[in-house]
């Protein structure tokens, strides 16, 4: 299974980031959505929320459980995907597209170098699943 787009960066906690300049679009990976099962609510952060890399950015509720989504990078939330409040199942259906969660303004571009590329993420997945 190789559905993880090459242009994205990944964390071992199964978040992805699409980095363009000083902005990053953030969501969770296909592995994460499949593991969580039916997602019924995405508790999006308020605009302007500042987080450090690795801190809780938002919470995703599946039927089964509530799971923290961690910030893949430090920065400020400047946009949220409001469509998810009416249709959280988009995260299951299209985790890398319509299921995106927030756009962050990145504080420290160097942090991006610590993220995994798609190949590294996939080899990481093969060690845990």
């Amino acid at each position, binding site marked *: 299974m190789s559905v993880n787009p090459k242009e994205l960066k990944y964390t071992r906690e199964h978040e992805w980031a699409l980095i363009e300049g000083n902005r990053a679009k953030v969501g969770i990976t296909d592995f994460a959505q499949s593991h969580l*099962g*039916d997602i*019924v*609510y995405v*508790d999006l952060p308020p605009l302007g929320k500042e987080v450090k890399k690795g801190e809780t950015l938002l*919470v995703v*509720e599946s*039927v*089964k*459980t*509530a799971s923290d989504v961690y910030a893949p990078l430090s920065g400020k939330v400047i946009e949220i995907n409001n469509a998810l*409040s009416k249709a959280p199942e988009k995260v299951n259906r299209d985790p890398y597209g319509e299921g995106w969660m927030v756009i962050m303004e990145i504080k420290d571009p160097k942090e991006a170098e610590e993220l995994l590329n798609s190949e590294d993420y996939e080899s990481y997945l093969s060690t845990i699943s």
Partner: protein
Amino acid sequence: MRIMLKRTPLYELHLKLGARMVPFAGWEMPVQYRGIVEEHLAVRQKAGLFDVSHMGEIRVKGPKALEFLQHMTTNDVSRLKVGQSQYSTVLNEEGGIKDDLIVGRLKEDEYFLVPNASNAEKIFAWFKEHEIPGAEITNESPLWGEIALQGPSSQEILQKVVPFDLNNLPYFHLTESQIERVPVIISRTGYTGEDGFEIFSPWDETPRVWEILMEEGKGLPLEPCGLGARNTLRLEMRYALHGNDIDETTNPIEAGLGWVVKLGKGDFIGREVLLKVKAEGPKRKLVGFELLEQGVPREHYKVLKDGEEVGMVTSGAYSPSLKKGIGLAYLRIEYHQPGTELEVQIREKLVRAQVVETPFWKSGTVGKIRAKEV
């Protein structure tokens, strides 16, 4: 330390079906196959098949079996005719709930009890401690596998493989029978709110029963269902889950299970305490609530009224049928009335909620079966 989990006779079949396995009550159980919502809705609309082989089975027989069970359980066992069963509780001396279970009368002097998986050993030991001559108690949990066939199409499916008319087996009745020569006990009960059957078969022959039922239900479809759907289905009916909503520190009256406590039937363990609770009135009550905003309540979340803590959530989930967050909570008695507005603390947010009448799901087919019965 590595804790060894027990496996049901259907373990291999679950893996083949692509189930996600999780530890539950010491067992390795399927939590879902295709998805909790899909499985949940299959049971509400057609039918689902659950492996519940982890549940316990205890047989009590002999001339004093009735007398013994009257002392050990809260419901009135003397009301059971042969072939009937009842929901009941077993209490400790303080009136706390050791377990909730089904008591079925198989024969004149023989009863078949189904305690929860995590409590089966404890209940068996408790019974042995109070054993009286003339009541023989056997823990048959290792002998029986159990499959629950649940949903409005259950009768249609099961009818194809049993040698008797299922119309003669009303709700809360049980009988010994067979499915293609496999000896089984069939009970018309369940944990979903839909019509359905719980089928007990010898441990090693349980995979055969599963496969026969899956084959018969193929076109419907009949969906294999995991513990995830079992939990959301039972919660929509407000059926208590021991370990969450009830335990040894809660009594049946505050838990809303007063209907299975027959204080007038004679003495039983816990009766003295319950008489007192009843006379004084319970201080808290287990109620159903729904969220008025988005979010999902979970166990141990705080319930507040105007900023003051007034209770705690014991079970919570997203309801696939009602498409909102629902839950059960113990609330201070003054807040238990339906319509009472409260807040549930979900992480740092206070989410508005309202006490509602239960069951949450009111269109279950079980209601129709019950009406047919009398």
